[in-house]
């Protein structure tokens, strides 16, 4: 009797499996994300979360990927590396996501890197610093142009204007300090000397002492490494001190918030930004023109606000991974990773990606556009 019951159980289980099989093909592809939607880095995470939601909805509306719907599992890590670690563990172990997009800040990305590597899951970071992909980590890719590219772009412009001695002002955070390090390392290549090197705390409300010291060093140009509110305070203090030295910022300030917050103080400041911010100024033969303009239009339509460059990191990460999933024909983690590494000539919002085994970012310095702020608008410098 009991053997009969056992047999019955097995048969039922088998039958269940048979029925489950087609159903599992319809199971959604799980996109895991952890972003700084709130907290100090919310200006990064907020447009990224909005972008992911917008484009995952759009993909689902047009039939999904490989006949499967995409399902977003999003956690708000609030710019906190410890929370990022907790959430990534949850994404991997409980939610069993197929790939991860996230890490709005360098600190969060580097904190979760060992865990991602160990679990073996494709991970696209949106952090700016070069350390994320240098040295190359097997499972980790990034879409944000690195600070080295930005600094190189800025230095070549300084060179063109004949600057020799420059001042550096940077925050004490991870992104700022990584950029500062690149600025120090690259300087000699461009015949530039760092005559002043100042740091501020992320909570500083006034950086006039630092700027005063830079001013006393009689520099030809100033480079600011930083993002968020402190950069707005920096540029306002610069105006307040009536300084005229050419002032450069990296892509960390690439949002309308910077221009609006500066309230006119940013006029004449030069910034390396992603093409998203100058969507309407791209020339007709620009390869990125179409993709950038349609993103800008769709984002504006969905959220009724100007798109920030940071949302573009999420867009490129999602599109490249989805393309890789399509090519791999499955969500097998190893296959998807290998396909991401084969991404060639992908025209994204941040530039044209040529990812290789040796370069997990795949962007060139000209992916950044050098702009000058004028009358509260980003003006592309030819």
């Amino acid at each position: 009797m009991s053997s009969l019951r056992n047999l019955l159980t097995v048969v039922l289980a088998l039958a269940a499996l048979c029925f489950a099989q087609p159903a599992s093909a319809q199971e959604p592809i799980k996109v895991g994300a952890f972003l700084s939607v709130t907290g100090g880095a919310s200006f990064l995470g907020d447009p990224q979360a909005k972008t992911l939601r917008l484009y995952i909805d759009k993909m689902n509306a047009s039939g999904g990927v490989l006949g499967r719907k995409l399902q977003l599992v999003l956690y708000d890590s609030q710019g906190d590396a410890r929370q990022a670690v907790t959430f990534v563990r949850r994404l991997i172990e409980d939610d069993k996501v197929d790939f991860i997009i996230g890490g709005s800040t360098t600190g969060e990305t580097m904190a979760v890197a060992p865990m991602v590597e160990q679990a073996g899951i494709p991970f696209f970071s949106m952090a700016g610093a070069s350390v994320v992909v240098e040295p190359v980590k097997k499972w980790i890719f990034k879409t944000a142009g690195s600070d080295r590219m930005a600094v190189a772009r800025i230095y070549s412009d300084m060179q063109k204007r004949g600057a020799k001695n420059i001042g550096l002002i940077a925050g004490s955070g991870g992104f700022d300090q990584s950029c500062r390090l690149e600025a120090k390392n690259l300087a000699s290549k461009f015949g530039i000397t760092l005559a002043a090197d100042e740091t501020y705390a992320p909570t500083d409300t006034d950086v006039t002492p630092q700027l005063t010291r830079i001013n006393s060093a009689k520099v030809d140009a100033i480079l600011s490494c930083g993002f968020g509110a402190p950069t707005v305070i920096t540029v306002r203090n610069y105006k307040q001190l009536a300084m005229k030295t050419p002032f450069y910022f990296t892509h960390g300030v690439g949002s309308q918030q910077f221009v609006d917050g500066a309230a006119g103080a940013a006029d004449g400041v030069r910034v390396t930004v992603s093409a998203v911010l100058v969507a309407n100024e791209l020339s007709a033969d620009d390869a990125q023109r179409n993709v950038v303009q349609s993103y800008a239009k769709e984002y504006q339509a969905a959220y009724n606000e100007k798109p920030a460059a940071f949302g573009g990191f999420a867009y490129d990460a999602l599109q490249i991974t989805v393309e890789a999933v399509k090519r791999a024909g499955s969500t097998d983690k190893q296959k998807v990773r290998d396909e991401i590494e084969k991404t060639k000539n992908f025209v994204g919002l941040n530039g044209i990606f040529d990812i290789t085994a040796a370069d997990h970012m795949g962007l060139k310095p000209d992916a950044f556009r050098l702009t000058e702020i004028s009358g509260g608008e980003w003006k592309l410098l030819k």
Partner: protein
Amino acid sequence: MSDLLQFLFSGLTRGSIYGLVGIGFALIYRSSHVINFAQGEFVMIGGMVTVFLLAAGVPLPVAALGAILAAALIGVVAQVAIISRMRRPSTLSIIIVTVGISMFLRGAAEALLGRQFFSMKGFSGDDALVLLGAKVSPQSIWIFVSLVVTTAAISLFFRRTILGKGIQATSSNRLAAHLVGIDVPAVLAICFALSAALGALAGLLTTPITLTQYDVGITLGMKGFCAAILGGLANPFGAILGGLILGFAEALAGGYVSSAYQDAVAFILIIAMLLVRPNGLFSAPTVDRV
């Protein structure tokens, strides 16, 4: 030389900001022996409400007044609806409740007004003024003048008005104050309104310099608290001087030592103060008769 002057101006600006925030702590402490950790949030409310009213097209003086009234109202509601209704109001439990109120206000601002930072133009524009070879933002002068006027007003309020004396009486002995006919609950509510209003004033004055964001109250509140401790918690004028000392120390440390240690300066000063003069620079030690 002009560098030193520039650092001193930076110190004066910072110090005036900290002092304005610090007065609020001292006022509430003076009346009720409670440290109101929601004080920083009133600073945030002052800045935020002003920015939003300006954006809605309200002229600056009206927007400023609206922000101050809004903060005062929230202060009264917090005191009357929450703090005065506590069953066993020990000092410690009231302090914990103020921490809760601060979290609530911060969260509400985040949900209602958004997470990005906001700014506004200086009251008299943003073009620097040159004083003795150093550059000063006109807003810094606004802040400093407001600090002086506020100090004078508070001084007059405590010395010349019945209400001010009532607050002093409530502070020194609540029961006795009640017995001589002072409406103690009303006095406490007024104190909360007053310090919330002062916090909001500080917030709207400093927004052109520090920007404002839903969580700006944490940092400014902490610095204002340091200022109040430095000057002796019970003494609003001490808070002002404490703020100025703190501001100068930070600016000079940033200018001559390293900007990385600016924040540490505030906390080193507090530790030194608690070790050497636990009652602060400007408060006489309290003596309790046993």
